């Protein structure tokens, strides 16, 4: 028998060879020390991989971990610090267990979604109160501005007003002149 098993050795370890091929491989291993050593090494590696697979987290744990990465979940309650207690290390803070690159649930840019979450509720309250105040003052003004049903029609007594103006201002009362007045007349 010439040559080594090569790729067929891996197939033999994985149990993927047929009956005849397996018999031939076993006969070669009996005669070839190199291939036998390589086969032992591959079996050992596979055994360690199986052992590693036995310690993987369960499916339920994996689902819970994935669920914690979804955006919009409520934050865990802050841990109150006692007086004098030092700030907990970053790794121990609850918010830090959140994935740092969590995507928003919709297709909007991450910054806009974050800004929407940061809008304080008080601002809406202030805006609502201001709108309500404007509406209230406007309504009150409209009601207060109502006129009586009928207002008298007035013809101002301008000549009488002119006399009253002159008497209270100390000037001589003068009535309205005729249309023909002297232009630019100076003393």
């Amino acid at each position: 028998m010439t040559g080594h098993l090569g790729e067929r050795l891996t197939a033999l370890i994985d149990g993927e060879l047929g009956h005849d091929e397996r018999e031939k491989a076993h006969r070669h291993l009996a005669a070839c020390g190199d291939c036998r050593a390589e086969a032992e090494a591959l079996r050992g590696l596979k055994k360690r991989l199986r052992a590693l697979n036995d310690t993987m987290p369960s499916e339920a744990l994996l689902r819970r971990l994935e669920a914690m990465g979804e955006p919009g979940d409520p934050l865990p309650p802050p841990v109150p610090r006692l007086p004098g207690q030092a700030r907990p290390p970053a790794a121990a803070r609850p918010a830090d267990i959140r994935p740092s690159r969590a995507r928003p649930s919709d297709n909007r840019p991450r910054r806009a979604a974050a800004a929407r979450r940061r809008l304080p509720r008080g601002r809406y309250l202030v805006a609502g109160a201001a709108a309500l105040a404007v509406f209230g003052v406007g309504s009150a003004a409209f009601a207060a501005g109502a006129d009586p049903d009928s207002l008298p029609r007035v013809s101002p007594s301008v000549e009488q007003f002119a006399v009253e103006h002159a008497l209270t201002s100390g000037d001589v009362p003068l009535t309205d002149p005729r249309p023909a007045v002297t232009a630019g007349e100076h003393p």
Partner: protein
Amino acid sequence: MNHRVSHRAWLAGGIATALLMLWFVSTGDTASGARLRSDPEALRLLRGAEGAARDTSYEGVQYITSWSRSGMSTTSLVNVAHMPGQGTRMRVESTTAEQGGQMFEADDSQQGRGGLTGYTPRMLDLLARNYAVVRAGEGQVCGRLTTIIEARRADGTAAGRFHIDRATGLMLRRELLDGQGRAVNLTFFTEIRPSPPRTTFMLASAPQTVETPWTHQLAGADLGALRYRGWPVKSALPGDLSLYDARQLDSRAPVVHLSYSDGLSVVSVFVQRGTLDPASVGHWHKTTRGGRTVYLRDTVQQRAVWASRGYVYTIVADAPPPVVDRAVAALPHGDTGFWGRLGRGLDRLTSWANPFD
């Protein structure tokens, strides 16, 4: 984040405080800190003219001319006689007035409100607050030596000029000047005799009309009540015009007369409830001020009539046209539609909140 909000709040508060202080400085009486400096002797002479007009017997002829904004003038000659304790009688012998021969009288309590009758302490205070009152040399009026006094604006130009008789202390000439130095109103004696008037002549002239000022004066409480009821009673108008007198013909009269002055110009605002009958101002000059219709007539005095928000306003003024225009613009204008009613209501709400303005 909290630190940033706190910083912004302090910044906004600081800006608001600065604006408030600026407003106080620019509009409040703290502006009196920049009052123009007057000559005490000039103020004393003006104050003395009021006492002289009240205590001196005299008679004479006054020449009165006023110029309109178009340059037209109106001139009147008036016989004047004054007896201490009895009042002043004026007989208009006008050549350009429509009605000559009218007779007016004013008792001594009406002395000292302007014109040639000198200045009351109130009017003198307004004059000194808004102008620099100084002596400006000597002059002559109808052959009598006078001391000239000028009321100057902040830029040094004369806004008013007075001649005070050195012998009697009477004011013999008064000029009201606009910003370009042109005369707006001129009143002076062409002849005067400081002696007991020939009352027989005055009485024999058979007065056709005797007028006295409206008797029902409105105090602060009366004005507050009017404001509460929505009447547009302003305590001041632009151009440093202050409300110094308010009255009605009687307590139930429908017209309120509000007198404003800066010490020189006098603007009377007559307010009455109702809508304007256009026929009553049919021959007036119809124009617009601030988008509203105003009827103007500037002959003997500056006159303006308009209606707004349920009130009719009539202005009669001895003042330069720009002063009257600013006063007209500052008073309410509006129609009777939705916005007019809203504006009228806001005026009333404001007057309820602040009955002093």
